[in-house]
Each structure stands twice: as structure tokens, then as C-alpha cells.
């Protein structure tokens, strides 16, 4: 497993460079939007990757609640952290693209608002983990992850209705996509997913190590206290 990590890292670096080449050079320039559309190859794959990571977080949280397996909890934590980073990338690249194309930085459209609310829920998840110092943090966090997931469809329907009630003239994507663009997009998604997996992997190892160190330290201080008596 340890040897696989650098190999996977090199593979990911290759994929990311190929993805960058594809996004900047290979993909045709969009007719109306021009070069600014190329941010799409980072924006959309980041969004998909973030949503996948949140999904893994939910799965790991459910497994933790059922089995109380600490590895599932570490996986949930790692996925939430990396997912929030990717979600932040989505929320930052979106306005950069929207400003020249829509003329506004932000609009309270369905997908934008849903992504923002999802980001808020997962930031509150990370806050809970940070502020809670007891040994039961994993349980609380897992419960919050499940409740947050229950919330997502409700958020979806509420904003969907909110927006259909007050329609806004927003130029959405829609229409067909050039196959070369689709190719670059999927390539970038693959690269981003690999990158996310790589970061999760190393963060996961770090988290497991950190917990082992904590356990050892606790054990040592217990032993010391026993010896000094």
C-alpha cells in the first residue's frame, strides 16, 4: 500500500497536467463566452468531486453509527474536509465566471443556493468536530451528517419552489455540448477525482497516525502516573 501511494501521486500529476492542457489548449473556444468559459473545466469537475465526497461522508457516517468502526469515522472526517475544499473551489470559480458572462457575481438560483447551503452544512459539521473535544465527537458528527443529508432534499424543494415563484432571467447551461469539450470535462473530472482521492488518502493516513500518537501519549501518561505512585 505504501508503495502504491507515490505511483498514484505521479499518475494523478500526469492526469492533472493533461487535464490542464486539455482545458487551456485542446478544448475549442466557446463561441459566445470566449476563453472565460474554460473555467468550466475546473468548476464542474470540482462540484462533482465535492458531491461524491459528501456522499462518501454520508456512507461512512452511517457505517460508523451502525458498527462504531473508528476507521469509518476517520474516512468521514477526511471526506468532509476535502469536500469542503472542493466545494469552496466551486463557490469561488462560479462568481469569477458569472461576472463577465451574467454581469453579476452571484444570483440566488437553485443550484448556486443549494451548493452554498450544502457548504454551510458541512462547515458546521467541521465546526462541531473542532469544538467538541469529548470522545463522543464521532457519534455527534455522524448524527449531524445523517441529519444534514436528510435536509438536502428539503433544501432542494424549498429553493426550487422559491425560484419558480420568482423567476429570474438567468442564462443557464442547457443545449448540447461539443464532444471535444465533453471529453476535456470528463478528463478533468477523472483528474480531480484522483487528486481528491490522493489528498484523502494522505489525510486519512495522517488522521490514523494522529490518533495512534494520541492513544500512545495517553497510555504513557497513565503509566507514568502509575510509576510515580
Amino acid at each position, binding site marked *: 500500500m505504501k508503495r502504491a501511494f507515490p505511483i498514484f501521486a505521479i499518475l494523478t500529476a500526469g492526469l492533472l497536467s493533461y487535464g490542464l492542457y486539455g482545458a487551456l489548449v485542446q478544448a475549442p473556444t466557446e463561441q459566445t463566452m470566449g476563453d472565460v468559459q474554460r473555467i468550466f473545466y475546473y468548476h464542474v469537475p470540482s462540484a462533482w468531486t465535492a458531491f461524491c465526497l459528501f456522499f462518501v461522508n454520508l456512507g461512512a457516517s452511517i457505517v460508523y*453509527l451502525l458498527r462504531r468502526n473508528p476507521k469509518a469515522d476517520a474516512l468521514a472526517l477526511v471526506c468532509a474536509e476535502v469536500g469542503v475544499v472542493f466545494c469552496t473551489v466551486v463557490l469561488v470559480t462560479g462568481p469569477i465566471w458569472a461576472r463577465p458572462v451574467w454581469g453579476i457575481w452571484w444570483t440566488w438560483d437553485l443550484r448556486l443556493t443549494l451548493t452554498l*447551503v450544502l457548504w*454551510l*452544512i458541512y*462547515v*458546521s459539521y467541521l*465546526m*462541531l468536530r473542532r*469544538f*467538541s*473535544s*469529548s*470522545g*463522543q*465527537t464521532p*457519534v*455527534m458528527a455522524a*448524527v*449531524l451528517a*445523517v*441529519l*444534514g443529508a*436528510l*435536509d438536502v432534499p*428539503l*433544501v432542494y*424543494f*424549498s*429553493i426550487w*419552489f*422559491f425560484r419558480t*415563484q420568482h423567476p429570474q432571467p438567468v442564462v443557464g447551461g442547457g443545449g448540447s455540448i461539443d464532444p471535444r469539450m465533453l471529453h476535456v470535462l470528463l478528463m478533468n473530472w477523472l483528474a480531480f477525482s484522483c487528486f481528491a482521492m490522493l489528498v484523502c488518502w494522505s489525510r486519512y493516513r495522517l488522521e490514523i497516525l494522529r490518533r495512534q500518537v494520541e492513544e500512545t501519549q495517553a497510555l504513557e501518561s497513565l503509566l507514568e502516573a502509575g510509576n510515580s505512585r
Partner: protein
Amino acid sequence: MSTPAGVTRATLAKDLRLEWRSKDAINSMLFFALLVVVIFSFSFDPTAEESRRIAGGLVWVAFLFAAVVALNQTWARELRNQVLDAYRVSPAPANSLFLAKVLGNFIFVSVLEGLMTPLFVVFYNLRAIGPAYQLVVVAALGTWALVVNGTFFAAMSLRTRSREIMLPLLLFPITIPALLAMVEATSSILTGEFSAKFWIVLLAVYDVVFTTGGLLFFEIVLHAE
């Protein structure tokens, strides 16, 4: 006494009696909501006709903030003299305690709303153009949504450092759809421009989902330590 309903009744009666004698929660909530009303009125012209459109949002934001004040006290009260620990080792079902707390907070926040609504009407010159009886339904469902989640997350944030800050941080993101539904339903009824039916249904679904979720997980949260 030992039935789950008996435990709920006893805990609820105890909370109501405590509140009746001290009036801590209701006083702090009332004063807080009053401050919010006054401070909001500086940010726009409260008597203008357009303010009717934002009044729904205003009312609920004031109630949300005020409810957090009461929700923060609901479990903190049980920490003194290790009441919560005693509850944990007793065979009484955890969900009875949860339901009692939710009902108690529901009553407190409803009383607050009953007292504050006339004030809103006077200060902001409100008048419902749509069907006003729906406002009662929206208020009941909306308050339940706030309170059921608030009680649950208040119990969760008991174990964290600086728990008073933690409660809104956990509660607000999850409550966004319910808050949106309450605000939109109230605005629809006040302006009479749209039907509030969809929002009432959404609120009811929200209440069912999160009441079930709360009852499902409360035992885990209570015994987590």
C-alpha cells in the same frame, strides 16, 4: 408515572413550573425579540408599503434569534446538580425526556410569539391581505420545526466547548429550508399575492422528517459521553 407518557408529563410539568416561578427564558426571549424589532426598524422605513414584503422575514428572524436564547437554557438547567447524569442512569426512556423538552420549548416560544405579534402589527403597520387563519398553521408548524431541531442540537452542543455559540452554528444551516418556508408562507399571506399551500406542506414534511430524526438519534446523543 413510569410509563413513557408519564415521564414526559412529569418533566414537562417540572419545566413549566420552573419557568412559571423564575420566568428566565420568557423574559430574556421577550426582551431580546423587542430589541431585534427596534433595531430592525432603523434599517428601513417600517411603515412603507414595501415593508410588508419583508415583514415575514423580519418576524421569523426575530423569533429565531429569541428562540436560541431559550434553547440554550433548556439543557444547561439540567447540568446543574447533575440532573442529566441522573437521568442517564435512570431507566426512563430518553425520548420521553426529549419530547417533554420539545413541548416545553414549543410552549415558551408560542407564548413569545403570541406576545410579540401585536407589537409587530403595531410597529410595522401589518395587515394580512391573504387568508389570516393560515398564519396560525404556519406559526405552529414553523415553531415546531425550530424547536424540535433546536432542542436536539442544544443537547448535542452540550458536550462542546463554548456551547452557547455552537447551537446557532449547528441549528441555522439545517433550519434553512424551514426558515425559508416560514418566511415565504408568511409573506405570501401578508401580501396575498401567492398561495402559501406549498410552503405549509413543506413545513409539515420538514417537521415529520426532523421529529423522526430527533427521536431516532436522541438516545445516542443523550448517552454520548
